[in-house]
């Protein structure tokens, strides 16, 4: 294995493009190095992006935020403006692993690891986050939900990497929230998770996005769930309708972490609870 730590995105992309064998981008390494230890991957090349200055920045832009691909969860949580604007996205990212993991893990790594149970992904999807994808010959900006195509699979080309995640400027009276279910209080992978982002107008939900994790091969956006609460004051009937829509959108598997039955049911429970938190945060 070769290890490279380029200073620019351009160099990083060139290294990926030139590698004939298996190449991996190393950001926080909290998934990749665990898989290396378990002999699940045997990279020929590892490209460490943490020495690329642009990738270590959180920038407030005219349209919102731009978060570099190598920004750790801990750094995200320490950015007050971001926490205020996107509490759900930050809390989702901060739920990944322990404080030790937070010192290293990144949203982009969480995304590109392409686990259906990734904590930050449903929150990013609900928030309308986009990925800035850089390849050898082009840059493109892609909605986060278009990145993961299946467990362990992404839509990125061999020579592409994600340089940053952008989050829009939150609309007035809007907020997001994320909840996951794990048997322990910490250190677990989500059995099921839900993210809700909503905007209020005079106490009524004007717009909403609801996303679920660990209930399908990829995190899923559930428009029917959003529809169930749009136009409501989040009364019990609306919440039940949203929960039912969430459960209906589930296509989970039975595995060591949970059953189909359990995931389907609890997806709705979590979505309801997350919606209530988002509603309250938005000033409802």
């Amino acid at each position, binding site marked *: *294995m*070769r*290890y490279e*730590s380029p200073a620019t995105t351009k160099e990083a992309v060139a290294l990926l493009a030139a590698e004939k064998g298996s190449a991996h981008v*190393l950001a*926080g*390494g*909290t998934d990749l*190095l*665990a898989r*290396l*230890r*378990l002999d699940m991957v045997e*990279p020929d090349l*590892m490209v*460490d992006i*943490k020495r690329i200055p642009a990738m270590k920045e959180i920038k407030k832009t005219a349209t919102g935020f731009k978060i570099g691909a190598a920004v*750790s969860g*801990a750094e995200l949580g320490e950015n007050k403006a971001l926490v205020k604007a996107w509490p759900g996205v930050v809390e989702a990212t901060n739920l990944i*692993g*322990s*404080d*030790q*993991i937070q*010192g*290293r893990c990144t949203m982009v790594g969480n995304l590109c690891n392409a686990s259906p149970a990734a904590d930050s992904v449903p929150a990013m999807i609900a928030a309308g986050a986009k990925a800035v994808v850089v390849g050898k010959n082009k840059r493109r900006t892609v909605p986060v939900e278009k990145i993961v195509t299946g467990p362990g699979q992404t839509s990125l080309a061999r020579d592409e990497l994600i340089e940053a995640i952008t989050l829009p400027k939150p609309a007035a009276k809007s907020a997001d929230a994320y909840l996951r279910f794990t048997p322990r*209080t*910490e*250190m677990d992978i989500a059995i099921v998770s839900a993210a809700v982002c909503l905007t209020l107008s005079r106490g009524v939900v004007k717009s909403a996005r609801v996303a679920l994790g660990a209930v399908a091969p990829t995190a899923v956006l559930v428009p029917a769930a959003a529809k169930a609460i749009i136009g409501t004051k989040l009364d019990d009937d609306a919440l039940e309708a949203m929960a039912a829509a969430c459960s209906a959108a589930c296509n989970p598997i039975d595995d060591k972490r949970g059953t189909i039955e359990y995931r389907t049911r609890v997806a709705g429970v979590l979505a309801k609870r997350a919606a209530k938190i988002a509603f309250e945060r938005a000033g409802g």
Partner: protein
Amino acid sequence: MSSVLVSTTVNGDPVQFACPPDETLLNSLRDRLGLTGAKEGCGTGDCGSCSITLDGRLVCSCLVLGVEAEGREITTVEGLAEGSTLHPLQQQFIDQAALQCGICTPGFLVAAKALLDRNPDPTETEIRYALAGNLCRCTGYDKIVRAVQAAAKDMRKAAKKNAKKKK
């Protein structure tokens, strides 16, 4: 796989080592620098026994490559005591009987220090969540949490005294 020469700072000392690029920092510390205080309990970041700080951030050294340490600053459990004076956390872990087998202790100490450095007066809940990345199978965590509480108190007292002195 050819080795890479790495220059880094460990517990304040400049050190160099050569390691294959796929070697974890944990193994570099243990096998090349003789710092065996950090332990491998899982190799996958799930137990915290290998906790160190890297440029001041608490991390699992099993999830860092040795080559990544180039130019960084590392603190391990071996760097906690000042000369022959134990860190208040170390002293309280002994006084409060917060260890039995002791294999998790180095990781707990490094993680607890990282907590107290940023939050000198944590609640019990804050302590428990901050240490959730460190598994202990002997103690049920009871005496560990008490030791961290006691050390935090000691450190606050010492800080107050120092502040007074400066005035």
